[in-house]
């Protein structure tokens, strides 16, 4: 469950962003729509605790995350939130397998090789587990970044413009994977986008005003 209440964020005196209250039930799939500069990325960072609001509160699974200390927030994020970005970015010096194991380790969870193997299998990239990011195609990289986001079975899966740089076929594939993984893990899925192809697949939308 996600709930935002009276949420505001100030970049400076002139740029204040206010977000209307919003409640999301566990397992729902939502879009975050809005023009460029409307605050989509800011809201995503507030939801993930990367930014602290100037006012208001964010609740994730009944936890008021703005009240958490920095270290506790880092742990909470690692264990409960999976993030996927427009550009799939993996740690270059680590293999696919090591990138996923690192996600478990940084979240403070015990290393679970079986879980990693299962996730890689479900995303059809198990044969790439020993490869380094430089040896993968863009599509494979995006699959690995989704695998990394879901490996800890997060209750909240957030994707920031995951399809905007992909052609129709790949955009559909990535979206399928995100929806499937969210459903398999009973995770809430939030996708920040202005991509119409995504809007056709998910009904619920939180619209940000410029």
């Amino acid at each position: 469950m996600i709930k935002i209440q009276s949420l505001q964020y100030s970049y400076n005196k002139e740029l204040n962003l206010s977000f209307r209250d919003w409640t999301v039930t566990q397992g729902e799939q939502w879009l975050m729509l809005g023009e460029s500069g409307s605050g989509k990325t800011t809201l995503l960072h507030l939801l993930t605790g990367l930014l602290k609001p100037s006012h208001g509160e964010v609740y994730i699974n009944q936890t008021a995350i703005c009240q958490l200390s920095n270290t506790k927030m880092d742990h909470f994020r690692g264990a409960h939130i999976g993030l996927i970005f427009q550009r799939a970015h993996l740690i270059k010096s680590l293999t696919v397998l090591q990138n996923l194991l690192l996600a478990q380790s940084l979240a403070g969870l015990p290393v679970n090789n079986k879980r990693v193997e299962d996730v890689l299998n479900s995303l059809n990239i198990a044969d790439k587990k020993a490869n380094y990011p430089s040896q993968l195609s863009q599509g494979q990289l995006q699959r690995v970044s989704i695998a990394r986001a879901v490996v800890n079975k997060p209750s909240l899966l957030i994707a920031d413009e995951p399809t905007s740089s992909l052609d129709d076929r790949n955009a559909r594939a990535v979206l399928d994977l995100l929806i499937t993984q969210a459903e398999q893990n009973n995770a809430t899925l939030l996708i920040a986008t202005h991509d119409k192809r995504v809007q056709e697949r998910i009904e619920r939308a939180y619209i940000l005003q410029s």
Partner: protein
Amino acid sequence: MNMLKISFKSIAANKLTAALNIMLIAFGTGIITLLMLASDQIGKKLENNAKDIDLVVGAKGSPLQLILSSIFYIDFPTGNIPLKEADALAHNPLVKTAVPLALGDNYNGFRIAGTDKGFIRLYDLQLAQGRFWKNDFEVTLGSIVAQSGHLNIGDHFFGAHGLTGNTDVHKNHAYLVTGILKPQGNVTDNLVLTNVASVWKMHETKEKNTGGKTEAYENGELEITSLLIQYRSPMSVILFPRMVNQSTSMQAASPALESARLFSLIGIGVDTLQWFAVLIMFISAISVFISLYNSLKEREYDLAIMRVMGASKFKLFLVIITEGLILTTIGTIAGLLMGHITLQLISNYQDSTQAKLWGNIFLLQEGYLIVVGFGIGIIASLLPAIQAYRSNISNLLAQH
């Protein structure tokens, strides 16, 4: 997948830069290690070999050469002195003990020293096997001589003329091994000890009996290389050397003074090299700093992703510090090994067994070098680590 592994992986991703950093640190540490080992061993050799000898009297020439040849057995003697004049000095009331030394031959590079039983007391020599020399051509071997020549009690061997080399072997007389010393930890481990008469006879100095005293003795034909002297009282320090130098054809040299002079001469070179090594270490610290700083710029997004995955700011700080520590620790350990191996290689090429320095000796001070290596690692990586700690993850992610 712990922090250490992440740091290792990151270093391995930039192998060339890492190798350069490690090499720089290793060179600096290696030079310092080499100097530390050499200084320590030379200092101990000087101290151990000269501690109970107050003065050496020998032929005029360089006092340092006299000390090097008669105390450390690493240089040629300045010449010989008549036994008659040496005897006169030995009976001087200012002298407590005087031990003659007759040098001139070697066995496989180990010097054969003709002397008397006073030498045994002077160095407090202990036997491992057999007995001390008694008759002509009987020898007592230092532990290293016996070990390296595989010699045992009852074995015979020939000495060679000169202080090194085996080209001019004295085949007219063979030495008989009657005793082997316990390891003494000083120069006597490398000596072949016999009586003075054996050295004379080996070189065919004729003794003609002229009613109790030999003619050769009276004529000054019987010679020794030097006289090792212990003073009777502190007063002797002032009077005796001056008396020898001014009123005889011989010279007196103080082991303590000459050792100190030698060490100060060596010290200038050691200091210069040490500063050179410190400069290399300083450059290596800057190099580690630059490479970590640059790599931080290259992988700031990696670090941001790690934060997203749950790494705390402090964890990122530790990752960078660990990288600096890994580089400097590997470099320091490589440098320590390099120092020891280099000294051992130098030792293998040294002709003089007496001056041999060993690479397999470890010093407590080497621990300080590891601490210094740690310090350099922390200092060099501190600024990049703080930068990683303070980086604005939200901004970085938004920019990408």
